[in-house]
């Protein structure tokens, strides 16, 4: 984990470079500050997530924060359980390309009604935020539930594998501290 001074130092360096008409150097320092800020925000988001969900413990070695890549923005991920039978993968992607589709589903009742009858997707509420729940059951493999919740310009995705009860999954996702995570992202 980077120390706070790194970001402060990068911002100071960017400021003095820019004042000294060294635009390119300022740009480099700002890019470094951006990477460090992304990592810091990602770490804080991981801290807000619970250490375990039901009997599935967070697999902290799989915690991941990727920041700095402009296209994808900041990405944070955590995995719960690693037995292979039951597993939950949580993802938070800033500026996700999926956001538009999920928002369209949530804001257009005609679309969500159509999709609910055709694909089994439906609207749910997680910690006060509207979300989209999707069940995937091929019959010969484990059941998968995917919950997508837009949080401003970020998309929170909760995907469970091997958990058969929809009620169990929706109860677990309520523990993800979405209001606090959303507050941090504002």
């Amino acid at each position: 984990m980077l120390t706070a001074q790194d970001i402060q130092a990068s911002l100071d360096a960017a400021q003095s470079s820019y004042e000294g008409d060294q635009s390119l150097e300022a740009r480099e320092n700002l890019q470094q500050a951006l990477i460090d800020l992304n990592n810091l925000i990602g770490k804080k988001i991981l801290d807000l997530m619970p250490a375990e969900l039901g009997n599935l413990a967070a697999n902290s070695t799989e915690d991941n924060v990727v920041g700095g890549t402009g296209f994808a923005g900041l990405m944070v991920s955590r995995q719960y359980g690693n037995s292979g039978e039951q597993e939950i993968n949580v993802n938070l992607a800033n500026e996700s390309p999926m956001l538009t589709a999920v928002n369209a589903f949530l804001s257009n009742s005609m679309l969500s009604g159509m999709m609910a009858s055709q694909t089994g997707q439906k609207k749910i509420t997680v910690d006060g935020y509207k979300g989209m729940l999707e069940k995937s059951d091929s019959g010969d493999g484990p059941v998968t539930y995917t919950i997508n919740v837009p949080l401003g310009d970020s998309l929170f995705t909760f995907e469970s594998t091997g958990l058969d009860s929809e009620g169990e999954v929706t109860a677990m996702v309520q523990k993800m501290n979405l209001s606090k995570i959303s507050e941090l992202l504002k």
Partner: protein
Amino acid sequence: MKVSVKVIMTIIFGVVMSIEPCPAQKKFSFKRGKEMLKKAKAFTEPEKTVEPSKPKSEEVSKEPSSDHHSAKKRKLTPPDVEEQIRNAKSAYADNSYTEARFYVRQAIMGIELKIGYQILKKMPETVLGHAADKANDEVYSTGAGFAGMSISRSYPTDEGTIQASVANSSVLSSTAQFAVSSATMAGYDQNTKVTRYKGYKTMLEVDDYAGYKMSVPFGQSSVFILNCPICESEDQLLEIADLYDIDEFKTLLGEK
């Protein structure tokens, strides 16, 4: 009854067509609208004798000019870099990290736009006698630094538009870098070749519809691309390329 409904519908359609012409078909729509109004008039006043038409010039002057709806290219000023850095520092001091991140991205965007405008200044104002469409000069930055920036200037002609672009740290530049470095691996045909231009490995392409194109990757993550649909030969393309100082672009972008 039927006739009056038809008259009302015709009048409404005529008025709409003459007031709100579709941009793409405005001339046609305007004429069509006038014809419809004339038709409507004929329904309501069939007995009236037709007055001699007014001089053509007068009529024309009442019609909207073809430029009437042409949109002016408006641009916002780039973000004030110093202000954005100050805001980022103060947000960071307040532990508002997402806010700090937003300001850092704005500052990067401000710097990249500034560099972009400097590059545009170094591009020629005319190519083969065709003036640059400076109102449509493009400088694009994501503000994230890594997704990159791109700068382009176009020179419209009757036969097609010549376009010069510079991209930095973008998908375009990495694609071009890969293309020139893997020239022997890829199955290039007689319409594609890799050569050297002013010391830079350069890809030349020709297409029956798009014309000639050259891509010159430079530095670690930049590329200069020139599209010339009206060029008649490779030599003419290279002649135009000489008008652009790639070394200077390299310096402005801080490339090694």
